[in-house]
């Protein structure tokens, strides 16, 4: 039987500590003094010590089903799957406002302009996926390069990309064609449609670019309207497009609620050619934008690997700065 006297009940926690070998000197002293006069509790201590012994045996005894091999193998596979899906993201101030960069094991998965404050929108959270974790350290290097880029101190972002957030194969083709546009160059939505072999799909191209998960990195800001108008960017933030183009040397003039690239101020080449011209060369000014790539500077065209036209000699007769 267990101790029944109030004094025994009071000593019981200390008794359990002594039996478990956990008692401090004070508790041990109290128990010793009590046991000297209480045979009931001496027996009780024996019981509890026996119980501790049984549990020590049980602790060491093999368990049925104690084989973790299968669970461990399944875990390895699920962890590998989780790792490939998981996005670590950082949120940073930048010259273009608050920006989120997310990267997965495969590469940079997401770049998003954020409002000045407030929580992430449902759309951004959906794009990040449920396994996203904030991880500024993982994105710090990307942030530094992006800021250099936005300040005009870097012309390339050679980042491995995770393109699994593409909505369709069509969007992937649009974004790949857009990614191939050189720094400092612009073309039109119809120009991208022509490049992917779908010349009639101008609006779908614009839609695909609207949902670009990697703006700046995949330079959808280099795609403009056939009239030279910038048309749209990041919702209604066409001023960001104008600033990105300005950083790359593409000058624009303000138009009604928009900005416009002046074709007469741009070095021009027929897409697929290897030489760039002044816009007055031949009949270039009357050609559709969809067949052309325009450069803001000669340096931009030459850095992209193009040579000056041997007829109009833009190298000898550059456009006014």
């Amino acid at each position, binding site marked *: *039987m267990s101790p029944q006297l109030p004094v025994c009940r009071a000593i019981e926690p200390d008794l359990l500590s002594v039996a478990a070998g956990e008692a401090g000197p004070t508790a041990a002293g109290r128990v010793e003094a009590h046991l000297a006069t209480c045979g009931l509790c001496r027996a009780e201590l024996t019981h509890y010590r026996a119980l501790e012994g049984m549990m020590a045996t049980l*602790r060491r005894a093999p368990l049925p089903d104690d084989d973790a091999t299968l669970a461990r193998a399944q*875990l390895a596979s699920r962890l590998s799957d989780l790792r490939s899906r998981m996005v670590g993201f950082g949120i940073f101030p930048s010259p273009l406002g608050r920006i989120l960069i997310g990267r997965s094991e495969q590469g940079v998965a997401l770049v998003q302009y954020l409002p000045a404050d407030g929580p992430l929108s449902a759309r951004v959270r959906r794009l990040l996926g449920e396994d996203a974790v904030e991880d500024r350290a993982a994105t710090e290097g990307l942030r530094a390069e992006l800021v250099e880029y936005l300040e005009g101190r870097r012309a390339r972002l050679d980042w491995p990309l995770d393109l699994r957030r593409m909505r369709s194969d069509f969007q992937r083709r649009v974004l790949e064609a857009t990614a191939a546009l050189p720094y400092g160059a612009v073309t039109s939505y119809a120009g991208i449609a022509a490049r992917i072999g779908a010349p009639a799909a101008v609006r779908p191209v614009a839609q695909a670019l609207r949902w670009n998960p990697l703006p700046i990195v995949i330079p959808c800001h280099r795609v403009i309207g056939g009239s030279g108008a910038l048309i749209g960017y990041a919702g209604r933030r066409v001023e960001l497009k104008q600033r990105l183009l300005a950083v790359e040397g593409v000058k624009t003039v303000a138009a009604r609620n928009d900005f416009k690239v002046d074709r007469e101020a741009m070095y021009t080449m027929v897409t697929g050619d290897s030489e760039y011209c002044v816009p007055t060369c031949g009949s270039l000014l009357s050609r559709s934008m969809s067949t052309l790539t325009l450069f803001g500077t000669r340096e931009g065209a030459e850095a992209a690997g193009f040579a000056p036209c041997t007829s109009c000699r833009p190298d000898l007769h550059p456009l006014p700065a």
Partner: protein
Amino acid sequence: MAEDAFEAVVGSHHAEIRRYLLRITARGSDADDLSQETFLRAFRAYRALPPGSNVRAWLFTIATNLGRNHFRAQARRRRAYAAAALEMRPDAPDRTDGQMLADETRERLERVITGLPAKQRLAFIMRKMHELEYAEIGASLSCSEESARAHVFQALRKVRRSLDGHLPVGTESSS
């Protein structure tokens, strides 16, 4: 990389966490599932874990929470299976060092542990089977160190009473 460090965490702790889950669920398949879930959750949170954290205690906390959710969802099923699992136990596998522990007593002990209220049972298993500190048990059960100690003691008292007559009799026993 954090990923490599996490591999080491899996290597060091998975077997023990699975054993803990096996003890609290009494089902190998549940221990498999819950141990995987424990480490998947841990992986998601691992990079946010402050340096120098007690990883083992943290894993026990995650496993305990998953275990408790599991009990809540499957309370009735768990009891039925735990009882069945005990019925199917092979003969005492600890025959070599278990001379003092008769099969009957051992089974009774396990059955009593299985029947304890959840917090007492978890605290008891963490303390007596996995030798966690009371503060670690408290963290796992979202209670104070003192409450954790009280849970273990209450469990011990119940176990001891239920084994009345099955424990070695002290020389001065009055029973």
